[in-house]
């Protein structure tokens, strides 16, 4: 877990600065040093710069925990796109966070095959055990955010959940407390 991500989750998510709109806290570019080298290497895979947009946004999220509007501007400049275009792409895809989320972002599959195996009970258990209470809300300690997602593509291992980049199969309400102890 990067220091930046922890910082982002501790900030007041409603403040101007943490939403990345106004430069009260100076914006530090993502693509410097090794990150810039990594992006340059990626560019070699494609015949134009725009094709590196999704990978570049993934790099931003890996470093900062979310994709701020200022990061969109930075990516736009590097790939010779407009910030509006980049925002249009970011908002199309569900996995780019457009605001800070809890330190551990939990996605629970509740599409039909998992629902048939009790995914709704897994959601209930996660919401109560994390203290999030509601879907999409972050727990008071800033640790967790829980959301429902559409099919995670592991239907035979119902119910799959994702905690940040970690994929966990065959979750039941009974297993939830044990699983959560791993994420401090």
């Amino acid at each position, binding site marked *: 877990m990067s220091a930046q991500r922890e910082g982002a989750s501790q900030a007041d998510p409603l403040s101007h600065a943490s939403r990345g709109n106004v430069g009260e806290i100076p914006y530090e570019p993502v693509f410097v040093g090794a990150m810039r080298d990594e992006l340059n290497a990626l560019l070699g895979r494609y015949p134009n710069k725009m094709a590196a947009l999704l990978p570049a946004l993934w790099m931003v999220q890996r470093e900062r925990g979310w994709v701020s509007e200022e990061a969109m501007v930075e990516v736009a400049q590097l790939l010779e796109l407009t910030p509006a275009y980049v925002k249009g*792409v970011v908002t199309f895809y*569900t*996995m780019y966070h457009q605001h800070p989320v809890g330190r551990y972002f939990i996605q629970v599959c509740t599409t039909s095959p998992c629902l*048939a195996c009790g995914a709704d009970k897994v959601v209930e258990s996660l919401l109560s055990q994390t203290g999030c209470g509601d879907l999409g809300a972050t727990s008071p300690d800033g640790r967790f955010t829980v959301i429902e997602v559409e099919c995670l593509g592991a239907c035979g291992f119902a119910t799959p959940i994702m905690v940040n980049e970690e994929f966990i199969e065959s979750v039941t309400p009974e297993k939830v407390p044990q699983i959560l102890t791993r994420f401090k």
Partner: protein
Amino acid sequence: MGYPHKSHPKETPILSKYFGEPQARTLEGWKQRGGYRALQQALGMTPADIVNVVKESGLRGRGGAGFPTGMKWSFMKPGDGKAHYLCVNADESEPGTFKDREIMRWTPHALIEGTAIGAYAIGAETAYIYIRGEFTEPLRIMEDAVKEAYAAGLLGANAMGSGKRIDVHVHRGAGAYICGEETALMNSLEGRRGNPRIKPPFPAVAGLFGLPTTINNVETLAAVPHILNNGAAWYKAMSLSSPKSTGSKLFSVCGNVTRPGNYEVTMGYPFKDFLYDMCGGPLPGRKFKAVIPGGSSVPIQSMEEAESTLMDYEGFVAKGTMLGSGGVIVFDDSQCMVRHIARLARFYAHESCAQCTQCREGTAWTTKIMERIEAGQGTFQDFETLLEIGDNMTGKTICVLSDSCAVPVVSGLQKFRHEFEAHITGKRCPFRTAAAA
């Protein structure tokens, strides 16, 4: 092999033979299991000869449409002076389907080998494997395997010393079911919103970056090395029913069933035997009620229909549905079909890219009505409205996501109308009340 279970004696484990064996993931382990012999052989053949072998084998696309693979490859004209591309569709997102995930998790080099052969056969120097963003483990495994293949000279400017360039890159999606649609996938790869494109032009004429492109499913490409190693006749002979459906096929099984997992059978295998024997039948004390055999976009079957079905492209069509992606979703008698159809409608409403009015409005409207019926507040008039919306959503949009939303609703109303009616006459969900009591 029915991963996570042991192989069933009636399976035909070809693609799944090494599922569950971590050693098969490494290049060395894969070579010990006969890996990269087919690529070596292919690089000594002409592209046209490879296309002919694949044509002769009868291999058809395993992603859902079942288009003959050799014919698709033959649309790519070599020597046209343009760059060609191969896209590998690893955006497996169809509810009920999780076979490509297992291929990538356990046998990443099988996919790389098939991809390299496919790229060479269509005159492409570059192939992109587009993996859905949620598949973090398959993504890492594929990236490691690609690195290994480059380091060993199997890929790159001089693939296996052939003097031919074959580059393979892994590209991560970011959460959008629609990117499994081939033209949406290409838009997404180009760094755009994943909106499907109007066809024509077809990808073979103007695909990725506006250049001739072939797009194949993971399972399709993973089968290609086996066809080259064993011959087209060997593959073609694997067929228990229709001669138009050949080879082995991975079926993912999920829902209310004793042993969910991936099972590989010869085309034409009896569905009844598959469900009750191979997959272990229903859970104790339960009965099967309905099956969606090819991922959530194909019509729901009653058990009567399912039990007389033979598992191939023609066999599923003969029993009112489709083979699709091979994602078998099983529901038992504890499940409310109205609830599941409402949930599937919500899935399509969430995943609609919103380009076409019929889909954007139709998926949302269908979901509202279905959820209202499920909550016990529906009317009999709703049935007519659902069918009328469904009619307006079918065959009228750029891609088939819209049609796919109408499919469970229309087939559900045909086959489980009594459950819909019970929600309206009883003004509540009969299943939910029974569970609460």
